């Protein structure tokens, strides 16, 4: 397998972006990534998007976006695993370069969520849960994570204050991120390749991808994210790293309880100790293992399909030392964890500065 590195990134400010269409957001951001990487030719493209069909009524966006970026006839594919779509797009780009099939791949995550009204957007997001056996009974996404939170509080004594501290910490970090904005809307992009460039090379050293039941009620333990555990285990094995080797990590805090459960599943803290770790400042920017220096989904925003790629951009910038006020000192090894639904899909990547 060939070595693979992130050679350039691009991200525009997230927001409602009423004046911009999905294709415009994509092209603006992709051009930033191409410029940052110093390439004008790519071999292939992957687009992570959860639901362009429900959000903008447009399927087949892989070719549409390749066309508007002026890149046809390069092969382009859109991939979907709910909110883990961006992470999955990166995985496929990584595999394509690692296999030797392509040298330069443009990986992007995009979601335009303000072209439909609130009810329609809620419906579109709700399709990531089991429609027949969860959605049918009136459960929502905040509701599903509330079920996890209530079970975690009952089982481990995690408190509401500890959950709130996750949000407080992430907003503190997000305030230092010029691209973060609470109302979502994004474009993200990045290019990978195995060629040395002037900036510090950020290599992809580990990758894991796993699934779990999408219905929460079908799981043995409601408080445990098995797909994240499995994806993390594979990524650690491939990278030859342990949880204590990670200097900075971006996790999928779609809700505060999610960050706590993810830290436990990735072995950053012991099972049941996630709430206490936040309370003690272990995961703060100046803590032992800074979690979500970017502000996380909570403060940076969460245009669902784009999130996984934005996490990788944050880690790339952290390892390059380009994160300004929110820079984690001496960060050499970074990790991203992206998940879909209530944890039914998970993608984990590990990066190392050369």
């Amino acid at each position, binding site marked *: 397998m060939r070595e693979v590195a992130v050679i350039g990134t691009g991200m525009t400010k997230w927001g409602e972006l009423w004046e911009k269409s999905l294709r415009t957001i994509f092209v603006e951001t992709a051009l930033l990534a191409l410029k940052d990487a110093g390439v004008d030719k790519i071999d292939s493209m992957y687009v992570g998007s959860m639901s362009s069909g429900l959000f903008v009524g447009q399927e087949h966006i892989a070719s549409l976006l390749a066309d508007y970026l002026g890149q046809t006839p390069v092969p382009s594919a859109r991939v979907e695993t709910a909110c883990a779509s961006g992470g999955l797009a990166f995985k496929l780009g990584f595999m394509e370069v690692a296999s030797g099939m392509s040298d330069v791949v443009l990986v992007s995550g995009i979601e335009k969520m303000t072209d439909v009204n609130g*009810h329609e957007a*809620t*419906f579109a997001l*709700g399709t990531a849960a089991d429609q*027949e*056996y*969860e*959605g*049918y*009974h*009136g*459960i*929502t996404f*905040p*509701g599903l994570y*509330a*079920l*996890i939170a*209530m*079970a975690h509080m*009952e089982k481990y004594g995690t408190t509401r204050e500890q959950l709130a501290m996750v949000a407080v910490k992430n907003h503190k970090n997000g305030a230092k991120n010029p691209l973060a904005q609470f109302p979502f809307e994004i474009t993200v992009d990045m290019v990978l390749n195995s060629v040395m460039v002037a900036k510090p090379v950020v290599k992809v050293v580990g990758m894991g991808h796993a699934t779990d039941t999408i*219905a*929460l*009620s*079908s*799981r043995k333990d*409601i408080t445990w994210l098995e797909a994240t555990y499995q994806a993390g285990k594979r990524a650690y094995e491939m990278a030859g790293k342990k949880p204590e080797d990670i200097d900075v990590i971006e996790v999928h805090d779609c809700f505060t309880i999610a960050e706590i459960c993810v830290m436990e599943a990735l072995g950053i803290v012991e099972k049941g100790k996630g709430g206490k770790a936040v309370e003690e400042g272990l995961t703060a920017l100046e803590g032992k293992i800074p979690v979500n220096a970017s502000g996380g989904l909570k403060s940076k925003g969460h245009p669902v399909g784009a999130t996984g790629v934005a996490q990788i951009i944050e880690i790339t910038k952290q390892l390059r030392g380009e994160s300004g006020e929110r820079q984690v000192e001496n960060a050499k090894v970074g990790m991203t964890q992206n998940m879909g639904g209530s944890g039914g899909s998970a993608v984990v990547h590990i990066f190392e500065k050369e």
Partner: protein
Amino acid sequence: MPTPSRYWREIPQRYRFETNQCTKCKVKFFPPRLICPECKNQDLQKAKIEEKGKLLTYTIIRVPPHQYVDQAPYAVGIVELDDGVKLTGQVVDCDFDDIKIGMRLKLEFRKIYQEGDSGILCYGYKFVPE
């Protein structure tokens, strides 16, 4: 709006609690499956789920999907039935303050929602105190 067939084909499990289980490892599924995720056995037999169990977790939904707007706020929980099957549904016929993790509940056949004034009346199960 979905076609009636999408609703109609779920009736055996939603109305009559019919499902299936693995003939080898005896794990009971809900809803029914075609292959056992534990032992990969495809030889499955018909089964019914127990109608009583205990509440594992719950939450109060205050911002509902559009078809439930007239019902909010309402409680949704996950119940573990006495045969180990876990399922999601609304907890009704009790005050929110009286809902406690671990409480005994039973399944009852109830109306779930209505697809507009001229649409399908959707039925299924809800949980009530035992």
